């Protein structure tokens, strides 16, 4: 493109090779601060976002108005000449009024263009700030998602390690409890035997029994 370089195009562009070194949160923070700078000082942001071709547009407009003024003056001169009043005072007044109108028209056009340009630059600045915010939010969300995934997988690893420890502790507890288990086995074996206890009846005779026995012999 011909003409001077666009200042908006020569602003620093992040080195792609350095981007991965910045964490998503660093990017989000930087984007957030950039947006805040715009909102804190919109005029400065707008100045940076002014259309570099603004002056060319204004110049072209002034030139167009000037050309139109020249055409108008030529017409006034031709009309005065046709009326045989070329160089007269009425021609001078008409030309002055025409120039005044063209000047006013030029000023109005320039003012309108500058107002449009400034408003556009403000809008562009706000749009850029909003874009930064969105980019920052995306980076923040990506970071959170990555963190979440990593945390879940890390927790899975820890749980597996916990399972391993629990299995080892269970074996150790089993070893320590083995004597008690042996005793339980012994007791359950003993108690499970049916009808192992019996009764032994005995009779010790008394005096009456001996008398009864003697009477039986008689």
């Amino acid at each position, binding site marked *: 493109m011909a003409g001077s370089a666009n200042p908006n195009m020569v602003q620093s562009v992040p080195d792609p090779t350095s981007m991965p070194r910045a964490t998503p949160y*660093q990017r989000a923070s930087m984007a957030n601060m950039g947006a805040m700078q715009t909102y804190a000082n919109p005029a400065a942001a707008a100045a940076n976002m002014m259309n570099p071709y603004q002056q060319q547009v204004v110049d072209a407009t002034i030139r167009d108005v000037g050309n139109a003024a020249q055409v108008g003056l030529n017409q006034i001169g031709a009309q005065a000449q046709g009326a045989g009043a070329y160089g007269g005072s009425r021609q001078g007044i008409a030309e002055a009024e025409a120039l005044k109108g063209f000047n006013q028209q030029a000023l109005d056009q320039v003012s309108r263009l500058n107002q449009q340009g400034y408003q556009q630059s403000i809008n562009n600045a706000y749009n850029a700030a909003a874009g930064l915010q969105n980019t920052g939010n995306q980076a923040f969300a990506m970071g959170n998602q990555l963190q979440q995934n990593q*945390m879940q997988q890390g927790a899975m690893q820890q749980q597996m390690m916990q399972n391993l420890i629990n299995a080892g502790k269970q074996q150790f507890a089993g070893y320590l409890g083995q004597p008690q288990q042996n005793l339980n086995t012994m007791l359950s074996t*003993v108690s499970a035997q049916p009808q192992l*206890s019996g009764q032994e009846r005995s009779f010790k005779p008394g005096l009456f029994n001996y008398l009864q026995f003697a009477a039986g012999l008689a």
Partner: protein
Amino acid sequence: MAKGGRESTDRTMPQFFETALQQSVGMGQDLAAMPYVGYRGADVAAFSPMQQAVFQNQQDAMNAFGMQGGQGQYMPDPVNTGGALGYSSAPVYDAAMANLEATSPAIPDYISSFGIDPITGEVGSRAPDSQPVALEMQSAGRRGGK
């Protein structure tokens, strides 16, 4: 029932059954002298490298926004128990025991007297074998472990 005499009924059991009962009681007596055996390995799985990375990332994230990250080691050093990395409660238990021995030394002595000495194997003064009871059984089980 005839008058003047006395009839009695005694419960009896086979000899092998009586022996088994006696052996069981002997085992119970031996077991009653078993001291507390604490587990000294890893109890709680240590944070995995990915979790530690998450912690670091989160701290970095906080720092990126100018906030305090909470850096620093919080958990004790994990122990390696046969390849399993985890945090052990043994140091906490040791500290509690040391505190108890320092403040109430009679209590650990009393509790320990119910079991054998974990180092020498000596039977504690309050273990069943040390009780002043004339046991009817000939043996309370084989002594001496293996």
